[in-house]
């Protein structure tokens, strides 16, 4: 149990990489990249978890009354979720441009175009 979440994060990362490498459609590849991204969230939050801990928000519990989970990793993940979505948007914009220029979104056909 004590390593299961880390291994799950590793599996999600590797399966995303597999999808990226074998993808025949750039839109599908961008989706696989977001799967890879989500593995980092799982890993970071698993590292910060503490058994019996509660969320690090003190608006309804007295400070020091209960152990809390690590807030630093949560802050890291929180910003990355939103920023990651805008980076996905940038990649999709590039895919739309590629489709306009070359009329295809298959990476194999694209590499044939440029030799």
């Amino acid at each position, binding site marked *: 149990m*004590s390593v299961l979440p*880390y291994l799950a994060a590793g599996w999600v990362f*590797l399966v995303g990489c597999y999808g990226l490498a074998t993808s025949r459609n750039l839109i599908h590849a961008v989706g696989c990249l977001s799967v890879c991204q989500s593995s980092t969230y799982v890993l970071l939050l698993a590292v910060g978890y503490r058994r019996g801990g509660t969320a690090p928000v003190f608006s309804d519990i007295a400070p020091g009354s209960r152990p809390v989970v690590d807030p630093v990793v949560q802050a890291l993940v*929180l910003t990355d979720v939103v920023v990651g979505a805008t980076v996905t948007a940038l990649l999709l914009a590039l895919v739309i441009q590629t489709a*306009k220029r070359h009329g295809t979104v298959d990476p194999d056909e694209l590499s044939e175009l440029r030799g």
Partner: protein
Amino acid sequence: MSRKARLWLLAVGGIGVAVLLACAAFDLPGFGGTSHPYGERAVRSALARHTANVISSVNFDQRAFDTLGEESILFAAVLGTVVLLRETRDEHSEPPETVRVDPHVRRYALIALPVTLLIGLYIIAHGQLSPGGGFQGGVIVATALHLLYIAIDYKALERIRPAAAYAIADAAGEAAYVLLGTAGLLAGSVFLANFLPYGTFNTLSSGGTVPLLNAAIGVEVAGATVVLLARFLDQALEIEGGGTGGTGRQDEEANRS
């Protein structure tokens, strides 16, 4: 490289990474352990600065400079998307056909819109107290506006959503963050210092500069999300023609050489 060779290379690399990841996983401190030195220090310093939501304190006070970097990535990504997806000279936009919306869907969406908008604004405003903040609330506010597209049609959405105004809001949010940081430099000691009085613990005005920076991020993220979705919706629904297969570009290159 042939497809088969590429798959072999992928398998070798994948197995290597898998072995390394597994070794690292068994060497990490166990899941759910009690030793969190950074977390304990962050909690202590958030309580000293009267911020009830420790995560907001980490984002907008203790690691505020890091958040400036993150939001600059966001700003740059939005800028790049806007440049890539603008309407080019050989394209033209045609207003999409109006479609009939099922009255039940329309009624539900029109009720859900103000409620969702209010929830989004509440989440931004209470970022220093309860779970939430500018990043989450901004996205909720921006997606709430798009319920109007589901309820009526794209024209109605365009009327309440002048994309240029939201682009300005995006830039203003980023500028406000930098200006607040500079104010910290002038009034306090360092860039992005928390120079305001900390206030009473667990009230709306607690946390010094945290609520202000939080609001700046909320405005920026909401503006950014609306602008992004506007560009994608324009491309998918309105803009047609142009740039077929890159023939024009290849001719240009041939002429140059």
